[in-house]
């Protein structure tokens, strides 16, 4: 039985983690493409419009991979977690169904028009289709976050006679306080991924000395949005997220921070390795009193440690949770530093000639993916041992009728399949970047308006 639980957990964790590599770029780029299209339309600048077209192609490849790896997510609630679905489907079925009705239809209908219908549409209508794709992808994000928020902090439900959860208040459930902050934090993270990727491609072009006109646009737009969202990621969204964990999942907070024993004036750990056997941190490097300040806004406040909670309620994998959290926060802090310097150089007009900065910006491309993944691992490992916090334990939720052998079969199948998809995606996107943006014929300065009919 134990191995079946492990395989079902790995099944969901693997497919969800791989899947989320794509939507974070989809959602981030959807916003940036709207920014490029808007500037292009307002200034009547063909470069911005062509830049949007270039990113549209990369967006298209990425979107396909997001869709095909996303479909299994909706299925797996039933296939691998059927007991959980029976238990909580009366509530979370609402948001999952709404995602289909409100987000997927919108996205899929207008993506086709955005990518292949530019000739059939006026510039304004084409801009609108970009906005529709953006709204669709960001709505989709909200419905998923609201679903997850219910698992983190269940509200708006009642327990029916058969023991299942049913909807009691639609708005309490949909506007869950947890969902609103988690959504802000998550979408800001997606915008960071989009910005960093755009900046990295721009820096690559500038370093290479090819398509430098576009390279400047990408760096300029990406650094501004990247800086804004890196700051928002920490404050207020990350801070509020931390507050909610302090209030509603105190045992998770203790595990994330590696606080084995409760104490007053608790320090904030910067580096150190959790030692579960001795219940302490090895090689700690810490800021005294800082954790108390961040959580309770007082230097001397008492923060409860893991010792304040029964062991069966501790998150199952404390070291992984601790590292995920610290990697996320560490990278987030570096993003702010990097983007503030980049913005300063941009303001002084020196960024395009600072090769060292361009190198840093180019090589930063993978790190938002790591930070976003680590963030989700923090949220989901932190929720353990609960599947629905305080209501259902993870070990009770998987499909008892699906044996470990069958689950392993499909897990291996997905691993093989996703390896192929990942290689194909990287190959096609790399090719698109190397091919570069389309040339702009400068004699057609007002291309955007003459092409319409």
């Amino acid at each position, binding site marked *: 039985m134990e191995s079946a639980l492990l395989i079902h957990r790995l099944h969901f964790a693997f497919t969800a983690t791989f899947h989320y590599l794509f939507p974070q770029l989809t959602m981030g780029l959807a916003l940036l493409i709207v920014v490029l299209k808007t500037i292009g339309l307002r200034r009547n600048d063909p470069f911005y419009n062509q830049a949007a077209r270039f990113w549209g192609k990369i967006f298209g490849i990425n979107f396909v991979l997001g869709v095909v790896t996303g479909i*299994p997510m909706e299925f797996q609630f*039933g296939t691998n977690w*059927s007991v959980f679905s*029976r238990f909580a489907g009366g509530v979370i*079925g609402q948001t999952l169904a709404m995602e289909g*009705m409100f987000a997927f239809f919108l996205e899929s209908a207008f993506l086709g028009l955005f990518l292949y219908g530019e000739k059939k549409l006026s510039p304004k209508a084409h801009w609108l289709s970009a906005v529709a794709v953006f709204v669709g992808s960001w709505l989709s994000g909200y419905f998923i976050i609201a679903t997850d928020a219910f698992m983190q902090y269940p509200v708006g439900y009642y327990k029916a006679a058969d023991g299942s959860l049913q909807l009691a208040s639609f708005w309490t459930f949909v506007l869950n306080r947890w969902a609103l902050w988690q959504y802000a934090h998550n979408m800001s993270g997606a915008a960071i991924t989009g910005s960093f990727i755009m900046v990295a491609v721009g820096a690559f072009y500038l370093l290479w000395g090819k398509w430098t006109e576009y390279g400047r646009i990408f760096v300029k737009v990406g650094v501004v949005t990247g800086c804004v969202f890196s700051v928002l990621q920490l404050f207020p969204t990350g801070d509020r997220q931390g507050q909610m964990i302090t209030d509603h999942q105190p045992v998770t907070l203790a595990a994330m921070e590696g606080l084995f024993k409760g104490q007053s004036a608790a320090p904030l750990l910067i580096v150190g390795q959790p030692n579960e056997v001795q219940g302490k941190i090895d090689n700690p490097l810490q800021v005294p009193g800082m954790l108390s300040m961040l959580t309770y806004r007082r230097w001397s406040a008492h923060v409860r440690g893991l010792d304040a909670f029964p062991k069966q309620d501790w998150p199952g994998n404390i070291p992984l949770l601790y590292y995920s959290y610290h990697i996320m926060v560490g990278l987030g802090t570096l993003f702010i530093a990097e983007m503030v310097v980049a913005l300063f150089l941009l303001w002084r007009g020196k960024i395009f000639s600072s090769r060292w900065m361009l190198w840093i910006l180019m090589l930063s491309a993978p790190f938002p993916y790591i930070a976003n993944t680590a963030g989700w691992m923090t949220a989901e490992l932190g929720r353990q041992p609960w599947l629905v916090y305080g209501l259902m334990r993870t070990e009770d939720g998987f499909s008892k009728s699906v044996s470990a052998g069958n689950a392993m079969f499909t897990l291996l199948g997905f691993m093989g399949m996703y390896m192929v998809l990942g290689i194909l995606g990287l190959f096609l996107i790399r090719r698109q970047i190397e091919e570069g943006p389309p040339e702009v014929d400068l004699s057609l300065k007002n291309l955007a308006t003459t092409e319409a009919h």
Partner: protein
Amino acid sequence: MGSLWFWIVAVMVTAYVVLDGFDLGAGVIYLIAAKTPEEKQRVLRAIGPVWDGNEVWLLAAGGTLYFAFPQLYASSFSGFYLPLMMVLWLLMFRAIGIEFRAHINNSVWQEFFDVLFGVSSILLCIFFGAALGNVVRGVPLDATGYFFEPLWTNFKLGPQTGILDWYTVLIGVMALVTLAAHGSQYVALKTDQDLGRRARGIALLCWPLQFFLTCISLVATYFIRPDIMANYSAHRIGILVPIVVFASLGIILWATPKGKEKLAFVASSLYITGMLVGAAFALYPVVLPARDHQYDLTIQNTSAGAHGLTVGIVWWTLGAVLALGYFVFVYRKFRGKVELGEGHY
């Protein structure tokens, strides 16, 4: 309230089969009907801007099923574990077959994605048909409300059935022929010249097979589940189902050789609607029959709480109106015969 949601889900599944059915069907005939690279491009361009939206009906129907009948969703998705996972893999292959093919202009690259697209479309049609067959035949549910079916046992209809037995394979083949014909009608509608003529030819070739399989499947269904006629004898309105099914078949036979492409396509859609609504009508109020009828899953024992279902009507109606709006808009933008030229696919 549960009954209303039963019909909403039935309509959404029907919408999925009619809409995604034509692009699946186009995939089934793709390797036979489209001979030159240019013709292949025409087929892909006919479905390119719409296939993704069509497939959303599957997700939306699945989500709505989850929301309205959580217990049915939990039992059926875990019970059909293996075939559902394979459907997922096939949907992935098919999606990249359509979308990644045009990125590289190399005949070897494109040939690979052509075969991927064609073969996965064929297998998906058979799987979807077999799934319908399983739902009509009944599954080995027990007192826990769960079941698990292996892919096959001995192809007979004993107490421990597999996903595939002679009956579900029959329905799978019928689905393949039906959707091949449906896809041919769509390709005939959207293209002209040799390709259009060839698609029309395939549709005509499918017709006798489709007629024959329809009759056989009705007899076979009655043979394995005589109780399936209960709703038809109790409610006279059920007589509409065979009328619509056979009238549509008649119209297809008349309209196709005359080149009335729109009428033939509409009739083909009506035929599919008739068959699916007929199955839903026969099952109601059972949502998933058990081999042993005391364990049947019904609207009564699977639906979500009353408040949730009531709230759902409000947003579902809004969402459905919006979705219809998008569909009308997009199909109008891409109406008429496809033209080659600038652009993807």
